[in-house]
């Protein structure tokens, strides 16, 4: 749950990029960091080791300025995808306000996408939250590889695998090239802020 500071009229919320290992979560944040300079309020921090695998998390602070009299701050996080870091994943999800689930379009990663979504579902449940009513956006990443002749799953199949029940907005993307990254983050911010306005009875 976001913290709301009544004194400064400042609201701080947390968006987590979730998904299997190597699906492009860090690449999303890197693109945002380099592209939305005006909204980014600090350095991007990646806590990682051993090559560029995210062992802990990435963190990127943003500020959206004043929205209806409130200063809105956003913290973007990624989780480590590797199975063995499940406790870090759970910790990062604590008090989450909105989620971007990044799915890997590579055919060879089909099962990993589904496993990761299930893992998200279970971790949220342990915090008393549900994938079905938390602000959530899907991203089908690495679409650029289609042109390289690498086998990708058709969007329709990914929808069927991942989004049949969720019916969340889903964006095809290439985090590497930046396509769809802005649309994804804009949509999750919109949904998260709407939900917070309802929860906090803020700006009503």
């Amino acid at each position, binding site marked *: *749950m976001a913290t709301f500071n009544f004194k400064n009229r400042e609201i701080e919320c947390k968006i987590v990029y979730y998904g299997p290992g190597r699906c492009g979560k860090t690449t999303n944040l890197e693109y945002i960091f380099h592209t939305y300079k005006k909204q980014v309020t600090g350095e991007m921090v990646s806590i990682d080791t*051993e090559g560029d695998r995210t062992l*802990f998390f990435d963190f990127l602070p943003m500020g959206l300025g004043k929205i209806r009299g409130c200063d809105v701050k956003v913290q973007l996080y990624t989780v480590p995808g590797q199975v063995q870091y499940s*406790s870090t994943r759970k*910790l990062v999800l604590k008090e989450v306000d909105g989620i971007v689930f990044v799915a890997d379009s*590579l055919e*060879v*990663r089909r099962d990993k996408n589904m496993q990761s979504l299930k893992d998200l579902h279970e971790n949220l449940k342990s915090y008393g939250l549900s994938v079905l009513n938390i602000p959530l956006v899907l991203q089908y990443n690495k679409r650029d590889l289609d042109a*390289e002749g690498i*086998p990708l799953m058709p969007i329709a199949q990914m929808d069927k695998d991942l989004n049949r029940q969720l019916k969340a907005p889903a964006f095809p993307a290439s985090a590497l090239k930046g396509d769809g990254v802005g649309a994804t983050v804009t949509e999750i911010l919109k949904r998260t802020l709407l939900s917070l306005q309802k929860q906090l009875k803020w700006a009503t």
Partner: protein
Amino acid sequence: MDFREQIKSLLKEAELYQQQGLLNEAKERYRKATDLIKQNAHIPNSQQLIAKIVQKVVGLNQAMERINTATSKPQVSDRKQDLIKKLFSSGRETSSDDADLEGAIALAKFGQFERALQEFERLLDREPLRVAAAKNILRCQLELDALDAAVDGYGAWTQDPRFSAAQLQKVKFFLESRLKKSGRTLDALALEEPRKPAGTAPGGGVSADRPAQGIPPASSPEPPRAVAENRPSGSAHGGEEEYLDINSVGILFDRGPQKGRMVEFDVSFQTGNAINLIIPGKDRNVIDHLEAGSRLDDIQFFSPIAILNGSGVVTAKTRIKSGPKEGDFSLDIAIIRS
């Protein structure tokens, strides 16, 4: 597709997967390519091709090995440690005792033991945090396999004027239980009794600034009353040491719509044998069936080291009246050892 084309595209895929760090997938593609080449051994350069692939796979195996043997809890820079601490302590602005303790525990959970130890050492100065800080210091040392340091540290505290006898007693029980868990016995480590007399033992050096009657009996870790009443005799020290740092609990419901189901809750706060859960007000099918006085006969306690079974009693249920958690419920549960 012509098999030449097939091999080419398999190798291209393998190359890309490797580049993206999808090492298993890369290996699988190389394996398929090798099979295909072997089935078509008549192609002129098949031996060279296979030799090349073998080389690639050796490289892949080495990369995998490096990842597997990389320390899973790497030490990170001070700046990053500050960030971990800040991000994962709940008091995002205040510097209350709880927030500091929580921040330090977060560091330890991330394996930043050295830094966490420094924080816990500082917290030893604060009376209300002393026992928790001491236990967490021991926890860090045990994580680091520094059993001797843990025992030595405890030995030093027995001479440390900051610790009261009651506090030492709690720390000692904690250490004993942990040593047992790691298969050590007290004797082997010659763990000494606290040298400080618990009050008025003759000839004891009770420090002047700590009046004897102010010291609670060493054997009463101030458990919630429900616990004291329900605790089987002979285990006066309860399980406080075992319930330390419970991250979440699973509660088996015996009534309501969740009847027969184990529902997991995050533990928000913990003091000794009492845990506190904050449950969203909208979760009516849970909250309506947890009343003050409810006995919970089947609870699983998830701590980082083990899952413990036990039971508990709801000692308080309070509706949060203001702030961002307004409308949620704060539930206190006293743990009863089963």
